[in-house]
């Protein structure tokens, strides 16, 4: 028995020491991502976490490039907007899918028709908004929408074109796991829960990408992602945990890349008659009770920028004139007293605990700030899968949420967030407190078919000021900051994108 024990021990020791550290292939890039892909069907997941994988295997008619996220041609070389409802795209010639099929207008028509199929698509809204798709010739398509959609082209970088022939001929299960697109990379192997491997598409229409092989390891735990980086197993990590930022900064082998994110975090307030929050003084007091600077410093470890409104600067409707209300608990108390709530009141603060950076911790801190001015906020944080349906049901009192819109246009967002709830047409779907203001609704509706960019900008800025300053619909907190870390020695050239997508054709080695 003793022998057995000793030999087992010896075996385990030998196995431990016989193993050298992992070796990274010279031309390959290994990336630790925070979220795994759900599927390889480009239309089945409308979250950025999913779309960023698809952006490597597929192309849209348009694409967004650079740190500003400017809209540039991709599978369409140019586009026209002849009338309010029509969008005409001129397609790139000579592009081939990974299976050798040529890209033509038929594929575009197929793709846009597929969007409306609930079995395979989460872009149903886009799919259903299309009235007709006309193939003018093999390389020209005209898309007509049912109602004017000013931001239609702005969304085209998210709609990835699929190959009609192979998508129709293959088994639906196969389509879900094996992407056939025109993208810069071809999927070689996907072992769910472990890794995704891809190799460069040497025939890519933009030219073959510099990195020939990419391996992505989805690791949900932020501290484990960090461990993978420190032990040299990966080249890049996304979603660096803020609590480990300093540690990485001190490590001479590592390099941190940060950029302000487009997503803002804010607290949604209601104005339901009969509740304390119907009084704007109460909303203002809650705003002023929160020490946002301390949240940024202590909870976000400085990796966030204070926000005064929901949209970020590049978005149409951003209003530089809006300033944050100062942190002033004394004034807040005074306001509460004036409103007749000198002894505070009870309220439930809802929020997700697995969606945004430090989300539950921010909510906890907010509850504490409110307690200090006498408002008793009961904390109710839960997984996003439970939280978001609650928001859409419109029965919350007060909640924490984050938002950014891929279209760079505040209009679409505000119809979801601020318009009074109208379930039939889908207005106010994410207006979880059922906030209701007729003037705001009216102004918002006037932008629905407003195509002129300057006029749009002016109206949306006016609308923004109305919501943030005159009404205090939300308490803005901060814009998140995206943190990435890379191995210094590898000479990786990496510029983070505003939408957090990891697009590997944009990355290179020195």
């Amino acid at each position: 028995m003793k022998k057995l024990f000793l030999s087992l021990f010896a075996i385990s020791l030998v196995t431990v020491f016989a193993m050298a550290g992992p070796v990274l292939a010279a031309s390959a890039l290994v990336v630790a991502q925070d979220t795994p892909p759900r599927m390889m069907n480009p239309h089945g997941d409308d979250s950025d976490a999913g779309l960023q994988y698809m952006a490597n295997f597929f192309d849209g008619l348009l694409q967004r490039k650079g740190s500003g996220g400017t809209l540039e041609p991709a599978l369409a070389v140019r586009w026209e907007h002849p009338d309010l409802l029509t969008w005409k795209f001129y397609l790139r010639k000579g592009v081939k899918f990974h299976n050798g099929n040529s890209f033509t207008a038929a594929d575009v028509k197929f793709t846009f028709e597929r969007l409306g199929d609930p079995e395979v698509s989460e872009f149903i809204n886009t799919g259903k908004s299309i009235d007709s798709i006309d193939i003018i010739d093999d390389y020209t398509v005209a898309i007509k929408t049912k109602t004017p959609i000013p931001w239609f082209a702005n969304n085209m970088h998210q709609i990835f074109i699929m190959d009609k022939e192979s998508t129709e001929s293959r088994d639906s299960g196969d389509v879900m796991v094996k992407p056939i697109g025109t993208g810069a990379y071809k999927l070689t192997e996907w072992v769910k829960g472990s890794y995704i491997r891809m190799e460069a598409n040497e025939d890519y229409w933009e030219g073959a990408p510099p990195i020939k092989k990419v391996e992505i390891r989805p690791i949900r735990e932020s501290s484990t992602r960090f461990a993978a980086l420190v032990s040299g197993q990966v080249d890049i990590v996304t979603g660096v945990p803020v609590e480990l930022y300093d540690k990485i900064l001190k490590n001479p082998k590592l390099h941190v890349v940060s950029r302000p994110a487009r997503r803002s975090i804010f607290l949604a307030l209601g104005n339901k008659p009969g509740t304390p929050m119907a009084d704007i003084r109460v909303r203002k007091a809650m705003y002023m009770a929160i020490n946002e600077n301390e949240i940024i410093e202590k909870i976000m470890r400085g990796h966030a920028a204070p926000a005064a409104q929901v949209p970020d600067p590049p978005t149409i409707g951003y209003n530089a004139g809006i300033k944050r209300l100062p942190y002033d608990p004394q004034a807040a108390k005074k306001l509460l007293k004036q409103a007749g709530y000198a002894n505070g009141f009870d309220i439930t603060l809802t929020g997700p605990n697995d969606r945004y950076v430090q989300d539950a911790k921010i909510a906890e801190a907010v509850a504490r700030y409110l307690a200090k001015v006498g408002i008793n906020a009961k904390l109710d944080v839960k997984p996003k899968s439970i939280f978001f349906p609650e928001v859409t049901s419109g029965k919350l009192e007060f909640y924490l949420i984050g938002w950014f819109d891929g279209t760079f246009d505040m209009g679409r967002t505000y119809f979801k967030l601020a318009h009074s709830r109208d379930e039939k047409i889908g207005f106010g779907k994410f207006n979880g407190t059922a906030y209701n203001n007729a003037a705001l609704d009216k102004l918002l509706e006037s932008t629905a078919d407003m195509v002129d960019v300057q006029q749009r900008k002016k109206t949306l800025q006016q609308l923004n000021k109305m919501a943030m300053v005159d009404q205090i619909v939300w308490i803005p907190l901060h814009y998140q900051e995206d943190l990435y870390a890379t191995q210094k020695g590898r000479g990786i050239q990496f510029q983070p994108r505003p939408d957090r997508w990891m697009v590997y054709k944009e990355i290179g080695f020195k």
Partner: protein
Amino acid sequence: MVTYIARRLMQAVVVLLAVSTICFVIFRYMGDPVITMAGRYATLQEIEEVRRAFGLDQPMYVQYGRFIWNVLHGNFGKSYVTRVPALGLILERFPATFELASVAVVMAFCLGVGLGVLVSLKPYAFRNRLIMAGSLGGISIPTFLMGILLIMVFSVYLGILPPFGRGETVRVGFWRTGLLTIDGLKHLILPAATLAMYQLAVLLRLTRAGMREVMTEEYIKTAWAKGLSPRKVIFKHALRNVLIPVITITGLQFGELIAFAIITETIFQWPGMGNLLLSSFYENDQPVIVTYIMMAALIIITLNMIVDILYALINPKIRYG
């Protein structure tokens, strides 16, 4: 005996049916999956269309009937998140969990029984007291804490073992194994040790208690008196009788093993079924959760039945009317 087996089979079917009913009821209480499936910008009409497409608009009994019908045909439905059959998703993860669990069970069984015998021979030796203290730790340290401690020591401070994932795997037929590569084995050590620890301690204590009882029995005294070698007495006479309950417990503890595997897989990011279950909870992916529960139930019930029947065969004293 035939009657006994037939009765156990019937009971197993009843239990599975009950599990399936409970699973179905779960559907009702897990919140509406359709809202997330329709995409962020969908209108109410579009949401309703998704609901129809997945048959979630029909009355309860119709849905249940269809659910049972489909399950009988091996179709557990499509995952709401990945939109591929849920059963396939789980089976894909099966090899990882199976390798982890079986290595852990073998480790726990060999070391647990071995050390248990060792300790029972000289209960007061210092080394054995140390082992017993260790076993007390084994049953008192929760699995998740054990995992974190091992990561802290072996990955963070010593830096000799990887803290996550399965490492390099090779494909043998449909089976993807990590047992054939050095990297794969290296990744297996910490999670397998974590998973084995509790069972090891339980089996050690069980073996020790059994040995202590058996060693006082007459037939062992007779064996000693006959002048048989200690090895023969211990292994041939004593251990054999101790092993029956030990093996039974090992078989019956399968449910515990599955539960602890979920925890271990979560801590070590092991790409197995447990990890999938936990992420399905977060994503509200009901078909995957339900399939997992049904699969676990099937495995546990089958295993229990086999243990029970074997036990009945070995032990003629038990009569089953």
